[in-house]
């Protein structure tokens, strides 16, 4: 499937992270163009493009920007969410490490649109290399006047800071991210007030994912129509899919939104590893309930995935073949959630670890009659009652697995071992 690369335009070039390389490919011209535009026009352009947040929730980006108060006396912030914590996701990383100026340009344009002069990139602690690259790129941009005072001779000024996280999944949740930048313990805040009104330091704040921001220069260059016409009407544009698992050619692929799972697995990524049989796929990071064979022809976009009872999430496609034991998979996923539960609210803090303990027993062949029902009961007691979506995510993942593969869980309890043969 040959498509024009917008987000991964530069990544294969030598020294792609350098400003010179970026400028040679027409870099920062979109910022120049954007600075000549009115703020409202810019917001409208992004609204028209139909760009939906690439972090996972799929909230319309232009709409989010339009919530920012216009009062010029108010300090406003842009925070780039580069926490990329969802297991299976590694799309932001490639932009950060290989094309940091694309992100910086996208952020500069966004800051102009919301009239902000201070922006933060909240990058996950493990991305030490990425943070270094970003720091260097920001320095280059300052030197050449793409950041700092009076950018390109206009009255627009912008400062940009890299803020490294300390290894908590929850800090990818936007309000926990803000707490973390402010120097507090990373735990979600109550909403309302939403960050657009009271975010970082209590001031209006836009929080966008790396990939969303990287889409912005392209929209300026090629126009909102070009973007809106790519893929499904209600969730258009290019999308980075991170394909991993039992697959021949794992990696990050830029494809139009709406590509089907079958196309991704069999046409783009060369099929299931070693010619084995497809069993299930997680379409958008471990939070997204898994899909099975019959769902493979569905369009991979926000709305279709939601209708199918799953979610597009971050576009982390995790493929599993027929050697995969779903009890073990659920155990691993759940262990992740209980490890990452921030501890703030009762059902997530106590519930996820309880589920993990049951799954661990099952996996070790110590399952007891009633365990499966107990897991289902715990799912009911957690879901919809937690403070933030983390607990719900744990339940969605487990429920998704139980929905399609309940018999494997029952088998594990009754026989103390996997139903699948030969493997993982």
């Amino acid at each position, binding site marked *: 499937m040959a498509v024009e690369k917008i987000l991964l335009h530069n990544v294969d070039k030598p020294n792609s992270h350098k400003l010179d390389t970026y400028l040679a490919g027409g870099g920062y011209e979109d910022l120049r163009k954007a600075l000549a535009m009115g703020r409202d026009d810019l917001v409208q352009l992004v609204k028209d493009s139909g760009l939906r947040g690439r972090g996972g929730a799929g909230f319309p980006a232009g709409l989010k920007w339009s919530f920012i108060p216009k009062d010029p006396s108010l300090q406003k912030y842009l925070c780039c969410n580069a926490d990329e914590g969802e297991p299976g996701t590694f799309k932001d990383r490639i932009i950060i490490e290989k094309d940091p100026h694309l992100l910086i340009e996208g952020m500069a344009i966004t800051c102009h649109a919301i009239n902000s002069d201070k922006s933060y990139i909240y990058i996950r602690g493990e991305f030490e290399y990425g943070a270094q690259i970003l720091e260097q790129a920001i320095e280059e941009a300052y030197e050449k006047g793409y950041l700092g005072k009076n950018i390109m001779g206009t009255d627009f000024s912008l400062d940009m800071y890299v803020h490294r996280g300390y290894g908590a999944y929850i800090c990818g949740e936007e309000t926990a991210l803000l707490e973390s930048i402010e120097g507090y313990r990373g735990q979600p805040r109550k909403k309302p007030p939403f960050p657009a009104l009271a975010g970082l330091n209590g001031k209006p704040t836009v929080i966008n994912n790396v990939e969303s921001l990287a889409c912005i220069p392209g929209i300026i260059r090629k126009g909102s129509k070009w973007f809106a016409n790519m893929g499904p009407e209600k969730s258009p544009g290019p999308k980075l899919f991170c394909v991993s698992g039992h697959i021949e050619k794992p990696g990050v692929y830029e494809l139009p939104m709406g590509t089907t799972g079958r196309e991704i697995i069999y046409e783009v990524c060369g099929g299931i590893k070693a010619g084995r049989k497809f069993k299930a796929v997680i379409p958008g990071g471990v939070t997204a309930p898994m899909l099975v064979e019959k769902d493979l022809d569905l369009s991979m976009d926000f709305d279709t995935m939601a209708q199918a009872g799953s979610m597009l999430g971050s576009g982390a496609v995790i493929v599993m073949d027929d050697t995969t034991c779903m009890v073990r998979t659920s155990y691993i996923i759940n262990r992740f959630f209980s*490890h990452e539960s921030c501890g703030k609210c*009762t059902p997530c*803090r106590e*519930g996820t670890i309880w589920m993990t*303990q049951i799954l661990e027993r099952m996996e070790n062949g110590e399952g007891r009659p009633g365990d499966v029902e107990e897991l289902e009961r715990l799912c009911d007691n957690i879901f919809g009652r937690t403070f933030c979506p983390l607990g719900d995510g744990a339940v969605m993942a487990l429920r998704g697995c139980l929905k399609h593969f309940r018999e494997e869980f029952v088998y594990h309890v009754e026989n103390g071992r996997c139903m699948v043969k030969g493997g993982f």
Partner: protein
Amino acid sequence: MVEAVDDKLILEIDGKEVRVPFGTLILDAAKEVDVTIPTFCYQARLSGIGSCRMCIVEIEGQKKLQPACITPVMDGMKIATNSETVVSARRSMLEFLLSNHAKDCPVCDKAGECELQDMVYSHGQRKSKFEEKKISLHVKDYIISPVIIKNSNRCVQCVRCVRVCREVVGRGVLGSVGRGAYQEETSFRKGELDCDSCGMCIEVCPVGCFMRLPYRYKARPWDLKSAISVCPYCATGCKTTLQERDGEVVRSIAFKGLGFNDWLMCARGRFGYDILNSDKRLTKPLRKKGDGFEEISWSEAMGMISAEFAKTSPEKRGGVATASLPNEELFFFQKLMREAMGTPNLDSTSRWSGDTAGAYMAATAINEGGRTIYKAVNSDTVFVLGTQLSEENPVIDYIVRHVTDSGRSNLVIVSPRAMKLDATAHQSLRHTPGELAKFLNALILCLYEGDAGGLASLEEVGLSSKVSIAELAKLAGVTVDELRQLSMRLKRSETISILAGTDILKLDQGARGLRLLKLALEAMGKRLRILPILDRANQRGAWGMGVHPSLGPGFSPLSDDEKGLDCYGMLEAAAAGEMDLMYVIGEDIAGMYPDRAFAEDALSKVGFLIVQETFMTDTALKADLILPGALAGEKTGTFTNQVGRVQNLAPIQSPPGGARIDLDIMGDIASTVSKGFMDDGCTDIFGCIQKVVPSYLNIDNKSTGKDCGSVISTDVSLEAFFNVAESPGAVPTEEYPLRLITGNHLFYSGNLSSYSDILGSLLKEPVAEVGPETAKALGLEDGQNINVASEGYLDSFRLKISKGTPAGVVFIAENYEDKPINRFFKRGETIPLVKITS
């Protein structure tokens, strides 16, 4: 949908209609219709976090259940708090909370008064399905302060402890460590805290996670006998519930909803109760014998008094009763002195002169009746002046922090040294110790810059405008910019509350300056409230009862013939051999009078010194006769707190051994010295008080548990006291370059607190505090041992560097045992000059 009327939102909770203002939380709206929603993490005065999920309710049209404690109501909402979904959600939350809870109720101190137990009883399920291994955060309980022990395995993660420490106490020494089920609220590296040891974390803990170390394994709540009393350690007047088991008082506790302090209390109030059962209490009358004392009976003691009294003449008699006695006893004391002993010489303190006290009373308009602290802190500007609030009146510090931090008021602090509240203040000024009057003078000049007419009228009442602002500022140790900024804040405020503390009484005659500031601000049309901030529990009551050499009961001014000597005057008379008899109740003159050598000498020259005490103080050691008295937890009566609120005391125990209630002792002495004095039988002393002290007319002293009321205004004038002469400030010399200031410590206030073993364990080592500049100039490091020397005295201390204390100032707290800091003073000196050597 229903329409909103009167700016109120109309909604439905469990089918009942509720009308509440915009912004009301569902939880509070539910209370309006008597619907109780269970909560854990919610605490009315703390920030809402909505984390425990106990209070989740169902809102029609919303998919997820919403926490009632952080969700504001909306017009037309239909809320169900008891639907099947909600009840089962609640049940499941309790099941979750119990899943990793230690469930060691049989050995838990909290059992019986545990919110988790109560909640499970009322909302939980009989059986949990949890059959996994419990997470254990630690094996043994661990100590994080000499008074706090912790068991995190019982924690329900409500985080009230962390929030109260940060938002109310202002220390922020607790935090959450770990994540998920391994989260634990504790101190840095679980080590011993450098904290205020106030125990607020214990008080707010719903379970047995934070516990009182001194109370550990001592009792079950249902075995405790309680008495509601008032904390004796400062004049804030916190209600405290003393609880005893088998004759030993085991804890003092602040109950939610009881007293204005509600659930607030400081280390002294919460842990200073052990003086009641101290083995150092005096239990028998003692007669001087050689260098020591011998036990005698009460009748022998009265016989001695009778014999000695006959040898004395009225003008050579005198008495000092501490301001920590209840009103009834103080009233009777002045009656005893004035009528039975026939002497006008009486006072309630040895720390300042009667005239200074008078000027302070006048400046703070103490005769104008009571105030409320909550109203006061809700002013546009709260002006803290001449008080080390954070250490002297910690609960007022909590209230001020909490209210001003939420952005409703402007907080300004003027003090000679740093305090915890500085972190919350919008402006903190450091003036030179002893130069408060000059500071206030300069401030008034700033306020009236460009208003010559206004200034002229202030000059008529005594303002000096000859010296320039710049010069005054320099003398007061502040900058003109700081003064202008403060003046601007005051100008912009409509309502101003001044919290005026005891530094005004001790350091100089700042009372005059305060009075001028009052006149100046009132002339500008500001609504002004001045609140006295005092350190002895019933100081305001003592003055009101007439325990003052120039004021009778109800602040009635005495004629010159009727006026007597204050404590200063009595000591001077004694030193000259002119004091035949002194009757001292509870006041440690030798320990507190600012010149110990002089006080000890004077006391030893008193013809017959009667000291009525609960402990063997330095003053008692000088006595010819010691009478064992009682403490606040052993008697009935009333205290009037600093803002004029009258509160009842209830006894939790009888005085130990042969010790007696002070009022009874005084009654016996009255009959001894004046036959038939007690016959006219004023059995209802409070009724007698009300006859002569009009400001107590509306007080109901029979009211139990609740307030008795607040004192009202009387039409007496205290203007005459403003004629006091100002004392000169201290000018540092090359040899003695530092000014020494003294005052109460967070863990000590008044000599009584120094007999508390628990409070003693909080701070074993006496410290001297200096600012970082002084330390640097002297090459000193935090924690090292130093010597502090004045011309006549030298003692060693541990150095503490406190950020924010200006150069050239040393602070040492009063009431350290074995550190008689009044030895640094020489009579007539308000600010001793000292030097520090390593």
